[in-house]
């Protein structure tokens, strides 16, 4: 057996164990389905406290300019799909809501909006709309930025390379706007203002192009260069660091709970699989093969690791996309889940081998794991436990997985902060794995 064959054998063992897990309906249910249902259910039950329409991005609008063009812009903004808009009079108040995590962003329409807007075609620079965003909600703010830009360029997205054809297009556009019945008057006004401005720009461009013709430039004098700087409304986003480290929605709390049950499902499934492996001749059969004990342990551990990662990212995926759980640093979450998986692989090894020492069916291991999961945040989230219980929960590896996952989600921990839970998980993994592997080897004494 060379290294590659050993790796392929370890992978074969892992694939087999994963197949067994998925094909055992009860194991698969408790590993993947139950945690999901549990976490969604609890997120929903406690969701009342979170407030707001779920599924919509909470957006604040502060309209400092009461002019028609500013109102038209604000109304367009308020009508955007996927946003739930609250209006504020005071910039500071809206910003505060962003800092508290109650709003994903707030958009400020400045006092000089209309004045700048009217100057647009004289100066080429329109008004600046400022957005204040929660940096931990990247997905949503990205969406918002896109929508704002879209709004700003509404009706302005066509580009033309030829001045003459553009003039014709503009005339046609003006005509169709006039004819159109379902364009509301405020928008017609905006369009017409834009079109007039563009005609002015075109004339300007044509003059400049004619002047430059001697310098070898194309006489047609396209608008390309002019369009680059042309921004009817300028968007500036500024990040507001969150000052309160609290979960902003109940699903952020129930996600780690789901992860606890998912990890528990993995551990019990694998302790069970190994117990069955031992009762049936399959483990013995593995030992008869030319594989080293390390290869067998590696295969079993790989299966455990993959299942832990899979259940965690299944939950994270569902919760990030469907329930707006913030993932400020995906790499940090990858670190947290990897450490949690490694920690629990160690726990699995240890419990699987201990299971043999006690009753052979893994029943005792299952009970221990259940208790650890319950005090580790599976039932009551650790951070709302009384201080004394929080301390006690520290003996449960599950509580450290919760801390790590929370750190990488709503707690927005720094790398050095998250090192504590991750380090504890790795230590649990190392100790469990070493003890488990040692005892496993001793049982397989002939090797």
């Amino acid at each position, binding site marked *: 057996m060379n290294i590659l064959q050993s790796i392929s*054998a370890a992978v074969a*063992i892992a694939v087999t164990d994963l197949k*067994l897990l998925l094909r055992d309906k009860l194991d698969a249910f408790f590993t993947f389905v139950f945690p999901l249902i549990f976490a969604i259910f609890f997120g929903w039950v406690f969701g009342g406290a979170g407030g707001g329409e779920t599924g919509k991005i909470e957006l604040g609008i502060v309209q400092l300019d009461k002019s028609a063009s500013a109102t038209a812009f604000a109304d367009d903004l308020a009508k955007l799909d996927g946003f739930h808009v609250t209006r504020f009079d005071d910039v500071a108040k809206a910003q505060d809501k962003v800092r508290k995590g109650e709003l994903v962003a707030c958009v400020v329409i400045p006092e000089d909006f209309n004045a700048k807007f009217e100057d647009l075609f004289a100066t080429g620079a329109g008004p600046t709309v400022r957005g204040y965003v929660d940096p931990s909600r990247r997905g949503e703010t990205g969406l918002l930025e896109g929508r704002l830009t879209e709004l700003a360029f509404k009706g302005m997205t066509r580009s033309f390379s030829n001045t003459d054809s553009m003039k014709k297009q503009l005339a046609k556009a003006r005509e169709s706007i006039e004819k159109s019945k379902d364009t509301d008057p405020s928008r017609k006004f905006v369009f017409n203002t834009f079109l007039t401005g563009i005609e002015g720009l075109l004339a300007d461009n044509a003059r400049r192009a004619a002047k430059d013709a001697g310098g070898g430039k194309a006489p047609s004098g396209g608008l390309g260069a002019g369009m680059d700087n042309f921004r009817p409304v300028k968007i500036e986003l500024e990040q507001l660091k969150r000052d309160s480290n609290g979960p902003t929605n109940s699903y952020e709390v129930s996600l780690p709970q789901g992860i606890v049950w998912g990890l528990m499902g993995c551990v019990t499934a694998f302790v069970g699989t190994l117990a069955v492996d031992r009762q*049936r001749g399959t483990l013995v*059969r*593995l030992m*008869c093969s030319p594989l080293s004990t390390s290869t067998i342990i590696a295969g079993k551990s790989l299966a455990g690791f993959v299942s832990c990662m899979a259940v965690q990212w299944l939950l994270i995926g569902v919760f990030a996309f469907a329930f707006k759980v913030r993932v400020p640093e995906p790499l940090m979450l990858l670190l947290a889940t990897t450490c949690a998986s490694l920690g629990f692989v160690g726990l699995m090894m240890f419990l699987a081998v201990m299971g043999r020492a006690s009753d052979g069916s893994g029943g005792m291991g299952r009970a221990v794991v259940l208790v650890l999961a319950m005090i580790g945040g599976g039932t009551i989230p650790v951070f709302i436990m009384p201080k004394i219980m929080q301390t006690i929960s520290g003996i449960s590896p599950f509580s450290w997985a919760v801390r790590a996952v929370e750190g990488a989600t709503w707690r927005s921990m720094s790398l050095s902060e998250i090192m504590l839970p991750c380090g504890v998980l790795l230590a649990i993994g190392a100790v469990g794995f070493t003890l488990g592997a040692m005892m496993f080897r001793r049982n397989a*004494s002939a*090797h």
Partner: protein
Amino acid sequence: MLRLTDLRKSFGPIAAVDGVSLEVHRGEVFGLLGPNGAGKSTTISMAVGLLAPDSGSVDVNSQGPPTSHRVRAHIGVATQALAIYDQLTGLENLRMFGRLYGLSGTTLAKRVEHALDLVGLLPRAKDLAGGYSGGMKRRLNLAAALIHDPPLLLLDEPTAGVDPQSRNNILDTVRELAKQGRTIIYTTHYMEEAQRLCDRVGIIDKGRLLCVGTVDELVRTHGGTSLVRVSRGEHEDAIETDDPLRTIETAITHGRDTQAATHPITGIRIDRPDLESVFLALTGRRLRD
């Protein structure tokens, strides 16, 4: 091919294997015959390196003990406890075991198909092993032992709990494997199987190997005399003899002279000594109690 030297293994106070020495030659089918608890499985476990002997040594093909991975690659084992994943199909089971021996790609596919074909499971290859009958599971267990084409096969009670059809398939398969020149060690507590299948037989009881030889040798040395039973209606004479044919001849001629008219012979049966008799002679007990 396989040499066991004074192997001993105790579990607490029980001496499961108590000084077994044995040499199995290349290409022979060697039967290890003994009742339940005799120490057959323990012997096999030590022979394949699953159990470390308390003392004594195992040598495979003059390459040393089976603790080395290289040596284990030459051994195929069908353990008494079924080594089959119920939640995998027959095909998946064999693929998995093949990969443990470094097989992959078309080699693996060919070996898997060959093994399935040999044990007659090809039509059921894609069904979950959990749905197989006891006999089919045994056959799959045997196929898993063959997957890497090993020259040395250790089959521990390969017919335990099997229907007659599967039993015949398994016996045929073993014969076929023997024909291919493999060395086979076959443990059983069915003396018929040992008698039908094995070139040489070792009888084991209470951890001790009582005798080793061809079936004929064992029967001749330890089996005792044949018994000729002559019935005349209700009446039966049992005559112990070394030469049953002569005994029958005399019984017939003698009977014609004296009793023929009143008590004609209604039946004649010869009970030849077999391995059962050998076991009885050596232990004072029957094989199957």
